[in-house]
């Protein structure tokens, strides 16, 4: 691919993986009964890298995320994930019986209030520090969930469709917030999403997962904010891999046409 495009298909033969990755999966396979959900997956994530994982429902992305989050057992598999990791789920999953700051400090040892305060200030939620989670708006709840993840200073931050339930305006604000937090703290980030635009706007590298395999991998070199020029072409490319041949369904087909 032409470098002027701002993005390039990753050639695994040429591309050198990071010597000391945060996440390293080799030939990772996961089956439930006769169903193979994930099939011989190799993934490296470098420290501080921002990766977007695209895939339709049933592509195995939730299973992969659960594995990286340490929620599923990985007996006898070659899986390396850092101990310090944190997840932000699509539904904020705050404990409703604890005020926001205690949710942020959940499981931390020692004096947690000042740390929670600092984290909530970073996500712009200082004014809701003592609020009950059920009184928060969707965007506020996701900010609190981000604060809860960041207060742990994770090496790996996992975002599971974190903005899917938010309205468009709030979603764009959250994109900016996530990017600024990422720049400040530099965790490796893996965001699972089905929103191609979101993936292009945020990530250094976009992976497309289909039927438990990586079917496309694009590295985006253009700085964020200067991606408008090629985002339509990249989106088209990613959608064609996402669309899948034997399934016959092309998601967002109408928006594609509208963009051209």
């Amino acid at each position, binding site marked *: 691919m032409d470098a002027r495009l701002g993005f390039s298909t990753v050639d695994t033969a040429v591309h050198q993986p990071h010597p000391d990755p945060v996440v390293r999966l080799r030939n990772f396979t996961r089956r439930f009964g006769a169903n193979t959900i994930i099939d011989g997956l190799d993934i490296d994530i470098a420290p501080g890298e921002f990766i977007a994982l695209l895939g339709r429902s049933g592509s195995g992305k939730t299973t992969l995320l659960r594995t990286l989050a340490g929620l599923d057992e990985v007996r006898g598999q070659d899986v390396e994930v850092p101990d310090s990791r944190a997840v932000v789920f699509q539904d904020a999953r705050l404990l*409703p019986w604890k*005020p926001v700051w205690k949710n942020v400090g959940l499981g931390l040892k020692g004096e947690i209030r000042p740390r929670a305060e600092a984290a909530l200030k970073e996500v712009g939620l200082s004014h809701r520090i003592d609020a*009950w989670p059920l009184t928060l708006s969707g965007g506020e709840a996701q900010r609190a969930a981000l604060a809860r993840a960041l207060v742990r200073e994770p090496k790996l931050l996992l975002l599971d469709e974190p903005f899917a339930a938010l309205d468009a305006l709030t979603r764009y604000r959250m994109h900016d917030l996530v990017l600024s937090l990422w720049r400040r703290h530099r965790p490796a980030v893996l965001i699972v999403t089905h929103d191609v635009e979101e993936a292009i706007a945020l990530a250094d590298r976009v992976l497309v997962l289909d039927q438990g395999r990586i079917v496309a991998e694009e590295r985006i070199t253009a700085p964020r904010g200067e991606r408008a020029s090629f985002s339509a072409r990249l989106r088209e490319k990613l959608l064609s891999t996402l669309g899948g041949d034997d399934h016959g369904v092309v998601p967002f087909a109408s928006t594609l046409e509208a963009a051209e």
Partner: protein
Amino acid sequence: MASLAIGHSHGAKRSRRRISLSRFGGRWLSPVLLLLLWELGSRSGLIPERTLAAPSAVIGTLIEMVISGELPSNLLVSFARVAAGLLMGVGLGLALGLVAGLSRAGELAVDPLMQIKRTIPALALTPLFIVWFGIGETPKVALIAFATIFPVYLNLYSGIRSVDLRLLDAAKSFGLSRAEQIWHVILPSALPSLLVGLRYALSVSILVLVVAEQINASAGLGYLINNARDFMRTDIIVVCLMVYAILGLGADWLVRVIEARALVWRPSIVEQ
């Protein structure tokens, strides 16, 4: 359009006023009327005193019994029975509910027994308990304890089991230990259900108290009622019934207070 809107708002205002009237005055109207009719019936001789004493006579008796200390001392005896029985029953229910709720082995060991126990009405055990424990305080307390185990057990057990697995996953992903998961996630989520169980247990305990106290008591509210029956003192019987009702109301109030403090995080469904 405008006139229609005005007419509508008028209607709404009037109906709101009507609701507030029924709230603050209306609800007392019919009970007070009934009391008046009762008093009138007693005075006119329509209701003989042997059948039912007049409300004024009941109030007089109540004041008399309070001043003489007869009512407070016997109330204390009954109260102690309920308290002792509840302490044991709720304690056992909590312990069994935790064991069955938190471990698969505990569920296998405890739940079948509890389901069998549930099929036996507590009061049907009265004769057996008399044979075992005699006619002193023990069978009375034991009956209350036995009857209050189940509501606490069942509600705690099902409360624990209906924990939101997504919240539990989140807690796991933040590296909480099993004990921390139980303390921060499972138990708080079971609390609303447990409080429902506690409320049941309290009302059951008073119900069982009434029956248990009929067993050859020499003190307590039941003793007062039995004595009054022998002397056909309907006024004393009515006083004791009132006290039972107040005990029930007090128990309910207690749980409400606990709920209000423990569940502040819940948005109130009903507007205050």
